[in-house]
């Protein structure tokens, strides 16, 4: 199958209150240009919001910046958006973070950001190391059956 990268965007945002909205709007605009449905866009933007909040609240980075890259691609069976969100902070242990969270539906006040990200996106991978920062790569497909 041939695929063509049609849209690409890179942003560097300061870690200030509500900056996640700017990131979400940028990704949403790109997704709309690709013809992605509003429900898929809403899911993706909520995941981006949680990833940016995690970076802002937990990374402890010194440069106070979030680095984002969006790539929108049209394919024969639909479209996809790849999102990379990077911070230069202390890193974290994703398995430990997952082990702390309760089951879906169990009421818990905090620490659900990663769970929401994984629920709202089709693919999520995390590259992180102690003191080496974190990059979360998320993919949203217009069609779920993308084999």
């Amino acid at each position: 199958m041939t695929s063509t990268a049609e849209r690409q965007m890179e942003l560097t945002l300061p870690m200030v209150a509500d900056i996640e909205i700017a990131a979400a709007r940028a990704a949403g605009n790109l997704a709309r240009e690709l013809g992605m449905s509003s429900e898929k866009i809403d899911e993706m933007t909520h995941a981006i919001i949680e990833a940016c909040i995690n970076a802002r609240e937990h990374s402890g980075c010194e440069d106070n910046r979030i680095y984002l890259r969006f790539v929108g691609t049209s394919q024969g069976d639909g479209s996809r958006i790849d999102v990379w969100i990077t911070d230069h902070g202390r890193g974290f242990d994703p398995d430990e973070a997952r082990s702390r969270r309760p089951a879906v539906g169990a009421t818990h006040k905090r620490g659900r950001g990663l769970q929401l990200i994984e629920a709202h996106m089709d693919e999520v991978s995390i590259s992180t190391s102690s003191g080496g920062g974190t990059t979360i790569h998320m993919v949203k497909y217009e069609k779920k059956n993308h084999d």
Partner: protein
Amino acid sequence: MTEELRVAVDRKANGAVLYTKGYINNVGGEEIANRAYELMDDNVRTLLLNLRDTKIVNSIGISILIEIIEKMIDKGGSIAFCCLTPVIHKTFQIMGLANYAKIFENEDTALKELGL
């Protein structure tokens, strides 16, 4: 950049409806909590949150909503939601709100079911 949440209150004979407009984050969640606690102090025990003009919530805002629900349950009351977008509905289920608060598709049904 700020995304201020606005909250409007409609008092009913047997409770109240809160209408939210905007982003429910930490600040927005606190704004809802302040209005909800004022109503609880005024003996309101049935509260409906209509989120028709809210398109984005984050996990911090939801954690505050959970605190409001817990406080209302402690007082013997109940909180319900209506007019959620599909992604907010899904997020509420993941976060566990659906276990402790009823969720209605529209306000008319909610008002009837809640007796407001």
